[in-house]
């Protein structure tokens, strides 16, 4: 974790500071002469860079580990994809860290954000789903999981999971279902969604190509193979511009027959 510090004030409070007028460092009276604000009543006070230019230091409980997730709902399938790069700042921590988590054989959760919060969220969801299975003697349906995820996120409304989620699966009618979330549990069922660092690059592209917005030609239902190709193109473009996206894309296609995963290499720069 890096400290997030407020930047120092542009004008020093005391002009006889450590960085300027080097001769006055050793002059015990230097500070006093220019000082009109009452700091340093004693002579020869050593300033550690805080008194003169105070700024707030704060421990940040969050880190952004990067990455992009995409989910698209079809007539009888759902495609969910995410890159596999884990980063922190300008450093790459891993080129092969999955952002997708299989919750049932009919739905997958994709999460970008702070990895430790994502892991914790996954653990909590797994436990809740197991308990549901024990008590109800059946697996949770995709809409039920969607609701539970929203509730789980809201539970931590005032110290949120730093997890940006997309959730995709097959609903009870066999149709593709995709839900998009914010960090505190607001969610909506949508035909198409993307989240994470490359969200802004991908959403406009998918709006046009998949949701068919702002187009004059006739909309047609896309096959899952076509959608997978579009997803690959979207990630290539996103990887070009977004430094946190790259290395590999993990693409999962969910149908009533199960889940198929494929991998697609991206540029590693």
């Amino acid at each position, binding site marked *: 974790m890096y400290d997030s510090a407020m930047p120092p004030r542009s004008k020093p409070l005391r002009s006889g500071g450590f960085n300027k007028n080097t001769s006055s460092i050793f002059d015990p009276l230097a500070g006093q002469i220019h000082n009109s604000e009452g700091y340093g009543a004693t002579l020869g006070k050593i300033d550690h860079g805080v008194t003169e230019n105070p700024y707030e230091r704060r421990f940040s409980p969050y880190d952004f580990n990067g990455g992009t997730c995409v989910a698209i709902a079809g007539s009888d399938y759902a495609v969910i994809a995410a890159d596999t790069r884990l980063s922190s700042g300008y450093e790459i921590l891993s080129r092969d860290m999955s952002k997708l988590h299989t919750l049932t054989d009919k739905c997958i959760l994709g999460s970008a954000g702070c990895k430790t919060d994502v892991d914790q969220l996954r*653990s909590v969801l797994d*436990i809740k789903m*197991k*308990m549901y299975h*024990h008590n109800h003697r059946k697996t949770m349906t995709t809409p039920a999981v969607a609701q539970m995820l929203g509730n789980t996120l809201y539970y931590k409304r005032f110290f949120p999971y730093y997890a940006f989620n997309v959730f995709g699966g097959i609903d009870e009618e066999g149709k593709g279902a995709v839900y998009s979330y914010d960090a505190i549990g607001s969610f909506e069922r949508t035909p198409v969604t993307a989240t994470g660092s490359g969200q802004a690059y991908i959403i406009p592209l998918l709006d046009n190509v998949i949701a068919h917005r702002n187009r004059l030609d006739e909309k047609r239902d896309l096959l899952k193979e076509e959608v997978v190709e579009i997803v690959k193109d979207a990630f290539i473009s996103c990887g070009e511009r977004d430094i946190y996206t790259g290395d590999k894309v993990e693409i999962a296609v969910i149908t009533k027959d199960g889940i198929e995963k494929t991998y697609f290499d991206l540029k590693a720069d």
Partner: protein
Amino acid sequence: MFRNQYDTDVTVWSPEGRLLQVEYAMESVKQGSACVGVRSNTHVVLGALKRSVSELSSHQKKLLEIDDHIGIGIAGLTADARSLAKYMRNECLNHKYVFGAPITPALLMGDLADKHQRTTQTYVRRPFGVGLLVAGIDPQFQTAHLYQTCPSGNMYEFYASAIGARSQSARTYLEKHYESFTEASLDDLIIHALQALVGCVSGDDELTKENGSIAFLGKDQKFTMLEGDALQPYLDRLELKNAEEEKDDDDDEEEKEGDAPQAMET
């Protein structure tokens, strides 16, 4: 001898050194309908005879899933059993969350035995009125285990076991055949469990897909239940097997009759 004077409280010893309340609790287990467990080197199978209160009611569930690799069969007070199942499920989930790995059945059984014992040493609680047959696969060593708990807090590991009403006939069958279980296939184990259960039905009743219930788990096999129609093929196979054996017995008897006159002559 002194049963009536020292049996009100679980914290009172009888002069023979027995805790009568605990023993009465074990009687409750014997009242429950039969439950059997058999294990091989790779699988454990639990079987149960489900009781129904009347013809109108459903049959009471006796086999419960605890985790992918642990399941239980119950005999006795069902409500007590469900409370224990809830505890076991919580322990399993908690262990997986804290240690990142499934719990070892042996560890869970230790905790369960302690939980039973605690109720026998305080006078504000009563012992659990239920016996459990716990089937588990050790996730580290990939070995199959069958345990039994009783209200006293004792915990035993078994090759095969049966508890509940009329379970003695099942135990007799299991004692005779248990050595063949270690290398048996899953299907054969299920047939053995059903065969043991057949001896536990009362009077005119028979083992059917409505009142029979099987659950199994194994090294690479998550906890799975066989009930209703899924159970019918095994019941059919059992019937076939018993019919063949009866035929063989009849053939043997005929041969014996043929020999008898000769024996008498000499």
